[in-house]
């Protein structure tokens, strides 16, 4: 394929103590596309996602080997500070986790701690608009983030990540704690965002991958079984295990 790969993963292995959870992953994440990582519980999909912004460093006793190139630069090189990586690669978590601060302060947090010198209010507004939340919260920016509904909180978390203008956005099962309507709103937001950045999303929900992802990676027991365009993979899977999984025979 001739498309530009924003993240290049080569022979990535992660183990906790003696247990290897990722067994040599090779994967290319293409720019301005949505890549979904699917697989049954415990297949290592969240671990893989956490390797892409070095949040894996925070896990006790995780050992990482192999290479993850972000725009050609190995983020596991000793010269690279994980804080710099996370500044470029944003992340949204499974459960909405806004800070116990105002809506405004939540979005302003990243820019503030990273020494943003521009117009903070404009940046906050822009981020909230991108996350599709501005119209709902513009009149109560000083209200505590916990006054928002679960779905709004998750879009606030997306806005918070976007405020750093990241090149890549990682989403770890972003809708698993949300109702169907909120899920739909978040999916719309994600689809809209791929114009500006690259999205990698872990999902438990096969239909969600089929709905929003351009590319899908199927992981099983720490190995990448199949990777390809979503439309192709969901119609003519190459591997029998992929077919079994996407048709709901296991997982």
């Amino acid at each position, binding site marked *: 394929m001739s498309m530009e790969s924003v993240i290049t993963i080569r022979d990535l292995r992660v183990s906790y103590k003696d247990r290897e959870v990722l067994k040599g992953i090779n994967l290319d994440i293409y720019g301005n596309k949505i890549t979904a990582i699917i697989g049954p519980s415990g297949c290592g999909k969240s671990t893989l996602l956490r390797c892409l912004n070095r949040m894996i460093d925070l896990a006790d006793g995780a050992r990482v080997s192999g290479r993850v190139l972000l725009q050609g630069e190995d983020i596991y090189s000793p010269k690279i500070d994980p804080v710099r990586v*996370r500044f470029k690669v*944003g992340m949204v978590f499974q*459960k909405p986790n806004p800070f*116990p*601060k105002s809506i405004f302060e939540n979005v302003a947090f990243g820019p503030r*701690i990273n020494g943003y010198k521009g117009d903070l209010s404009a940046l906050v507004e822009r981020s909230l608009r991108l996350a599709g939340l501005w119209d709902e919260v513009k009149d109560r920016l000083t209200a505590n983030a*916990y006054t928002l509904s*679960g779905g709004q*909180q998750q879009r606030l*978390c997306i806005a918070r990540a976007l405020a750093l203008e990241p090149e890549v956005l990682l989403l770890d099962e972003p809708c698993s704690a949300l109702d169907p309507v909120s899920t739909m709103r978040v999916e719309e937001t994600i689809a809209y965002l791929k114009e500006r950045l690259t999205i990698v999303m872990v999902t438990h929900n096969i239909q969600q991958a089929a709905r929003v992802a351009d590319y899908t990676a199927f992981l099983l027991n720490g190995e990448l079984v199949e990777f390809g365009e979503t439309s192709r993979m969901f119609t003519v899977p190459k591997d029998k295990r992929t077919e079994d999984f996407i048709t709901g025979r296991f997982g």
Partner: protein
Amino acid sequence: MSRREDSFFPNLEGRKRLDLIFKLVFFSANLVGLSVLLLLLGKIVRDSWGWLDMQFITSFPSRFPEKAGILPAIYGTVYLMIITALFAIPTGIAAAIFLEEYAKKSKFLSFIQVNVYNLAGIPSIVYGILGLTVFVRWLNLGRSLLAGGLTMGLLVLPVVIVTAQEAIRAVPESLRHAAYALGATKWQTVRYVVLPSALPGMLTGIILALSRAIGETAPLIPIGALTFIRTIPKSPFDSFTVLPIQIYNWTSRPQADFRAIAAAGIVVLLIVLILMNSIAIFLRNKYQGRIKEI
């Protein structure tokens, strides 16, 4: 197969009665402490009746009951609490942050942890002897407010550390992850996410710690706060006395009037304690309720 009615004996009435009995047991457990406290307060207020007036609050101690006052002890206690708080709160919170956020889990860490718990159980007189050796003699601070405040600070330090640790542990890990994922450093995460969320819980520990310190006499006796002083301390290096020591001094006198004066002193001590705690509780309530799990 038997019918349902034959195998289940719900006895709802009996179970409900048991509910009620336990509710009463738990309620009366509260009454034990509360009623003794009220009894005590009632007796103290009655004993002190007529003695607690402006003259008492604004005068120095005296051999003559009608001239005796508690002014230096009020100043001594307030100053002592300020020094204790200034020393114990930052030190305790900083130690708790290290133990919870920075230290790697290790044998050494659990050794420190166990010793923090042990320190909380050491008799307070031992702290007095420690304070006498370290602050009064080695650091040459003399029998001063500063030596007393630092000693008292050491005494309450374990309580501050342990409660601050619990407050820090109660901050959801997801909030730390959110901060790290936004490119925050460890210190930024601690400063802007962990500490604000842990503050209400920490204040609870601080209230407990200072409430204990305000009533302590034993650690101050070796320091030399027992002195019968006729001046108000003007600097941290002046000698001092505190309310509980002044009260103790009065109760040990033979004249009956001094027992009433001691009661009046206790009322003053309680008022200072309540004022101090009200401030802390006000602060805690102000910050509480901002963090809720989703």
